């Protein structure tokens, strides 16, 4: 289902993204396609540093919108933004995740790792306890994965729609009864960065389909 474009429901978003990609918008009256050619491999490199700040792909799209297109930023988790990031991500399908390590990015990686290892919530669980210690076992009948974010944004059957990695992370945080970070908060992006770094070398399967 996931690898067949005729049955992968996330392709509905990818097609929307393709249309948005070529549409002129903002005060600069520019379309994404006016500056960018192919975006192959781009999604495999995010989150990445952008002028000393760590940004994920969605935030990077919004930076392009506000700085280059002079258009208002799209709301995180909005259909348009998910469509664009799915369209960009689709072009990297099959490519290995390639997160660059650098001295500058090290503090972000460390704080993402610390968040992954930190016990939190009323259940007092860390990400590691399930996704490393108990990976492969079952939780409520479902297999516990190793938390490699290889297919985001994903079409999740439970959501009946497309969602970002941050939405999925919120799901886990609510599950351990912790207060989830806000969408787009630095804590979330650092955690995303650590997870992508941890999955480096694995092939991207965007847009993935998951239960």
């Amino acid at each position: 289902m996931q690898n067949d474009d005729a049955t992968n429901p996330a392709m509905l978003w990818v097609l929307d993204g393709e249309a948005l990609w070529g549409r002129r918008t903002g005060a600069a009256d520019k379309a994404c396609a006016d500056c960018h050619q192919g975006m192959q491999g781009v999604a495999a490199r995010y989150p990445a540093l952008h002028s000393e700040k760590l940004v994920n792909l969605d935030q990077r799209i919004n930076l392009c919108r506000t700085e280059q297109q002079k258009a208002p930023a799209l709301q995180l988790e909005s259909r348009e933004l998910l469509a664009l990031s799915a369209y960009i991500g689709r072009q990297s399908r099959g490519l290995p995740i390639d997160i660059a390590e650098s001295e500058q990015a090290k503090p972000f990686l460390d704080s993402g790792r610390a968040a992954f290892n930190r016990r939190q919530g009323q259940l007092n669980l860390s990400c590691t306890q399930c996704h490393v210690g108990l990976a492969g076992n079952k939780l409520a009948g479902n297999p516990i994965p190793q938390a490699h974010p290889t297919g985001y944004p994903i079409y999740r059957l439970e959501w009946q729609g497309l969602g970002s990695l941050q939405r999925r992370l919120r799901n886990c945080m609510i599950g351990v009864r912790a207060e989830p970070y806000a969408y787009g908060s630095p804590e979330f992006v650092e955690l995303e960065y650590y997870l992508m770094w941890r999955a480096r070398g694995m092939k991207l399967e965007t847009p993935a389909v998951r239960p």
Partner: protein
Amino acid sequence: MARAIIQVPARAKRGDILELRALIGHVMETGFRRTESGALVPRDIIRQLVCTYNGIEVFRADFHPAIAANPLISFTTVATESGKMEFRWTGDNDFSATESAPITVE
């Protein structure tokens, strides 16, 4: 108009069994859910998918509230002649979408 993705083999031999797939973006709101204030969210679903092969109906499906969002329907028919395969979805709130693909039968 809603986005739809259909899969029809471009060419086939006469008498072949064709597998057709039709995926469409739709919320399929059941009409049983409530908002935070308790008001019922009105039903908004696709009611029917009809597939015609050169104008002849070869498949029809009635949809109900329990069908998930973005429904995917897969079915088979027999290749008889070259022409056009047309899919038409209709539903609540005057929803209507069509998508078609050509097919060559040798």
